[in-house]
């Protein structure tokens, strides 16, 4: 007995499979470093440096100042005590810095480090002045520490941190210069000032360049992520098309296969039935091809748009006009719109229209004629929680526009809800019903929303009559030409198209 040609019998070598194998999905490609990774790496580098710097500073200050204290013990007891206290307090600060670095508090750790060095330097300078009177050489030597601290601040912190450190160093240098109380005090201060100014300038330039590099990296990363996402969606599309085409093709070929049986050709009634079924399968195939071409066309355009402010109310009005009357009986249906006139999203007007057309048309399609459909839009603060590299939770807040489309129809079983945003996903009960649909509408809504950096989800209990609520969140934009001066005034109106 010879086996079916396109069948893969158990145990056969995979190469004998006659079915074409689609390209593998991109989902499990090798992980690529992201900008978040770059920033995390930057933070990790800083934390490592902070730990080392704090440890070195703590050790160095401890040994140096306690050494000085010991040498002064017999000559000047008070001064020795001062140095001893300093030799404990400043290293303690640096040790606190190590602990803070371990707790990933980079800025606080850097502050502790800088404070420890400045405190030790400043106090040592004052102490030396009070003991030795005017010892310009030693004091000048100590002044070299201030630019060093500024350099450390530049390596570990941002521009603000550098400037604050420099300002503190400058004030301390000034106090030391005053305390020296010599005719050269002015000159010494200018010497210190010059040193610190140069260090500050260099480090601010460095930090600025670094910041620009990181920002460029972020842009590149975002662009890369977007392209990867689109690529993944395309891949997914090809895979699902491959799947979806197989059923109608199998049905059509199947009926033709049955038509070849002489027994079936002899029976006129049977013949008519089979031809009819084959024809129907062919029609299904054509409809599927058409809708695939349509989504493909839409997919191709989606990545090429320049984000611009789009008025939500105008987009909704345009969307309502685009609802296909062949699919949905719009006339006589009540659509309650509650969208303030001054809400703008940042995105593409056509994309927003498509999303709204799909959602409103779905809401009308899947609810009874007597039930209304609500469309609302509000300004919300979107809080997103992300898990950082060390399990640290970070939250980002941004202002978004939330568009809500609610119907009072049959609802969607919660288990099926996430599936609906996939391509060709339709609920079993809809497949059996007469409602026209190809399972692509919500998928398109999801793609269009995600391309505009938004999100879409639905809430439904699945209880008939309670209906379904779709939420779309999109980045907000200021009204073009205005500076957001008008307070948001809500307006309620009823539209009966």
């Amino acid at each position: 007995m010879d086996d079916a040609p396109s069948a893969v019998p158990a145990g056969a070598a995979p190469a004998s499979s006659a079915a074409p194998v689609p390209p593998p999905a991109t989902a499990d490609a090798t992980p690529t470093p992201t900008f978040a990774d770059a920033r995390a790496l930057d933070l990790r580098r800083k934390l490592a440096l902070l730990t080392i710097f704090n440890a070195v500073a703590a050790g160095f200050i401890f040994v140096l100042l306690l050494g000085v204290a010991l040498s002064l013990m017999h000559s000047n007891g008070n001064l020795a005590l001062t140095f001893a206290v300093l030799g404990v307090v400043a290293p303690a600060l640096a040790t606190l810095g190590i602990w803070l670095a371990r707790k990933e508090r980079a800025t606080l750790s850097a502050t502790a480090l800088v404070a420890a060095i400045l405190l030790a330097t400043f106090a040592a300078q004052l102490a030396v002045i009070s003991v030795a009177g005017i010892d310009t050489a030693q004091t000048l030597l100590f002044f070299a520490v201030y630019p060093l601290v500024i350099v450390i601040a530049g390596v570990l912190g941002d521009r603000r941190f550098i400037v604050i450190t420099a300002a503190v160093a400058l004030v301390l240098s000034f106090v030391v210069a005053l305390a020296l109380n010599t005719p050269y005090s002015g000159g010494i201060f200018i010497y210190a000032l010059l040193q610190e100014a140069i260090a500050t300038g260099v480090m601010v330039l460095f930090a600025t360049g670094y910041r620009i590099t990181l920002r460029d990296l972020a842009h590149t990363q975002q662009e890369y992520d977007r392209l990867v996402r689109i690529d993944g969606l395309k891949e997914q599309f090809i895979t699902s098309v491959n799947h979806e085409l197989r059923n109608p093709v199998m049905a059509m070929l199947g009926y033709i296969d049955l038509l070849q049986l002489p027994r079936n050709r002899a029976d006129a009634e049977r013949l008519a039935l089979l031809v009819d079924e084959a024809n129907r399968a062919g029609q299904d195939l054509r409809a599927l091809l058409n809708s695939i071409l349509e989504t493909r066309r839409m997919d191709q355009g989606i990545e090429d748009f320049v984000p611009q402010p789009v008025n939500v109310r105008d987009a909704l009005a345009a969307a309502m006009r685009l609802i296909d009357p062949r699919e949905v009986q719009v006339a006589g249906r009540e659509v309650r719109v509650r969208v303030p006139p001054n809400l703008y999203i940042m995105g593409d007007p056509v994309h927003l229209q498509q999303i709204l057309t799909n959602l409103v048309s779905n809401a009308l399609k899947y609810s009874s004629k007597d039930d209304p459909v609500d469309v609302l839009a509000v300004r919300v603060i979107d809080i997103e929680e992300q898990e950082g590299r060390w399990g640290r939770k970070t939250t980002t807040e941004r202002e978004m526009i939330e568009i809500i489309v609610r119907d009072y129809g049959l609802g969607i079983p919660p288990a099926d809800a996430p599936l609906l945003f996939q391509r060709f996903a339709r609920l079993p009960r809809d497949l059996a019903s007469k409602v026209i649909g190809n399972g692509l509408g919500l998928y398109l809504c999801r793609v269009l929303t995600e391309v505009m950096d938004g999100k879409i989800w639905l809430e439904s209990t699945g209880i008939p009559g309670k209906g379904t609520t779709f939420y779309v969140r999109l980045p907000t934009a200021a009204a073009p030409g205005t500076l957001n001066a008008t307070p948001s005034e809500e307006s309620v109106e009823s539209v009966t198209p």
Partner: protein
Amino acid sequence: MEAAPKRHTILVVDDNPDLRKLMSLGLPDLGDFEVITAEDGIEGLTQCAELQPSCMVIDVMMPGLDGYQLVRAIRGDPQTAHIPLIILTAKVQEKDQYIGLASGADQYLCKPVLPSELSRAIAKAITIGEAERNRKQLALVEEPFEDNQR
């Protein structure tokens, strides 16, 4: 073996109504098959336990219980473990084929498959399944005999 062939009950589990219709219409033309259909994995499992079909044709991507899970469930139940199972799916990747066969299916067919091809595959699966069962029964009969000899 000239005795009249036994009428075989084939249980088709597929969520696609068109394909269920095709198989209910077509398979009886191509062999002595009686076709029963189920539209998802859960229904397939209950029908399987109730009807004890001669062979099952199972789709993979279905709501609720998917094809692989269904195959495992049937194989896990001693009452139904012997039933020949054919996976018929649009999932054509090698890894899916591997998962399907590893879960316990006898054959893995990729859509589109013609009804005539499917009926041959079903007939083959039934024949192999019966031979396997006969061999096992034979072994059970022979064992006590050997014991008596000793």
